[in-house]
């Protein structure tokens, strides 16, 4: 007890100091620490979030760039393919057109040949008929007699024979 007295321990002062201390704790917490602590935590959260966002954005950017490159590559390849296909088609088309013209020309030529042949044939036939007639007239003059119809037939027959002979 003497020790307590020497240190001046008084339970009333002790309780008073405890109460004082608790009041200070409450005041400091409510009005100084709490708002500042909240502010600090919000700030660190915001910083964290912005760092995360930045990372996210960078990742997305990289992804987009990669897809862009891929798309460009794809488009290039496609373009090349289309070009090749067009070339092939053009070649095919021109070949077909050429073939068609050639065929047409051929038919025209053959047709023309046939017509020429026919004209030639008919011309020859006519000429032959004329010749036969001429010969009959010539013979009539020579013989001074009018050749009968048998004579005409005979001459024509002879001419035909001669002609076919020559043809062979």
């Amino acid at each position, binding site marked *: 007890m003497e020790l307590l007295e020497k240190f001046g321990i*008084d339970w009333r002062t002790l309780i008073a100091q405890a109460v004082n201390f608790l009041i200070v704790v409450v005041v400091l917490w409510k009005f100084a620490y709490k708002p500042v602590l909240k502010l600090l935590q919000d700030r660190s959260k915001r910083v964290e979030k912005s760092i995360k966002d930045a990372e996210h954005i960078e990742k997305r950017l990289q992804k987009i760039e990669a897809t862009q490159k891929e798309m460009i590559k794809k488009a290039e390849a496609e373009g090349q393919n289309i070009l090749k296909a067009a070339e092939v088609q053009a070649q095919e088309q021109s070949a077909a057109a050429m073939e068609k013209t050639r065929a047409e020309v051929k038919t025209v030529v053959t047709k023309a040949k046939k017509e020429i042949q026919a004209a030639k044939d008919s011309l020859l036939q006519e000429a032959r008929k004329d010749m036969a007639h001429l010969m009959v007239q010539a013979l009539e003059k020579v013989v001074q007699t009018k050749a009968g119809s048998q004579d005409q037939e005979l001459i024509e027959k002879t001419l035909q024979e001669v002609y076919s002979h020559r043809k062979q």
Partner: protein
Amino acid sequence: MSAAISLAAEPIFHVGSWEITNSLLTTWVVMAVIFIAVAIFRSKRLKKFPKGAQNLIETIVDFLFKNMNEVTGSTKKTLTFFPLVAGIFGFIILVNWFGLIPGVGSIGLHEIHEGKAIFVPLFRAGTADINTTLALAIVAVVATHIYGMKELGVGKHIGKFLVNPFKHSPILTGVGFLEMFGEISKIISFSFRLFGNIFAGEVLLIVVTGLVGYVAPVPFYFLELFVGFVQALVFAMLTLVFLTMSTAEQH
């Protein structure tokens, strides 16, 4: 100049039979200063880009929060203990430093006490009185028990100290008793560490000032500023350690 340094705080006036001591008076002054400072601080809105006082408080809060996180290891626990631990730190450091203000300990009255002329200072650092430090220590230790019971449950918390020797090993019963004495020794070490440091500091400053009045005490003032900070931090951190221990699950 001879200042009789009393171990106990000196009474200034009486309220009934209760002696209001100079340390209690000083504590009230400090409280008033804290309230005014807080009121001024709160009268301005908190800004996103801190300036002045907000910067200072932010630095203190950040410093305490980081140090506490290292001890508790979890932000959740730090947040539960922050009001008490940061309050202890703030209160003790302000009371400690207030004792260093010129006038505290030197402004006083000459009184005749029991036939002898003695000097009674009007102010005395709050923590240079065992009543204050003992009150702080009791609050801190009681708080560890309250938090322990809240976290683990009343039965489990008391079970740390009272172990049934027939259920468990009798050695654990003995350990439980030792733990109980440990709680009392915690209070004693808490209160006497703080009281001893601050009281010794006051004595040191008075002695040095008595020897060489000018310049020589300056380094000692710096030393006492540092001691005031360290003691506040030690008290707060030890409280935090005890809080963490008492709320931790036992293995």
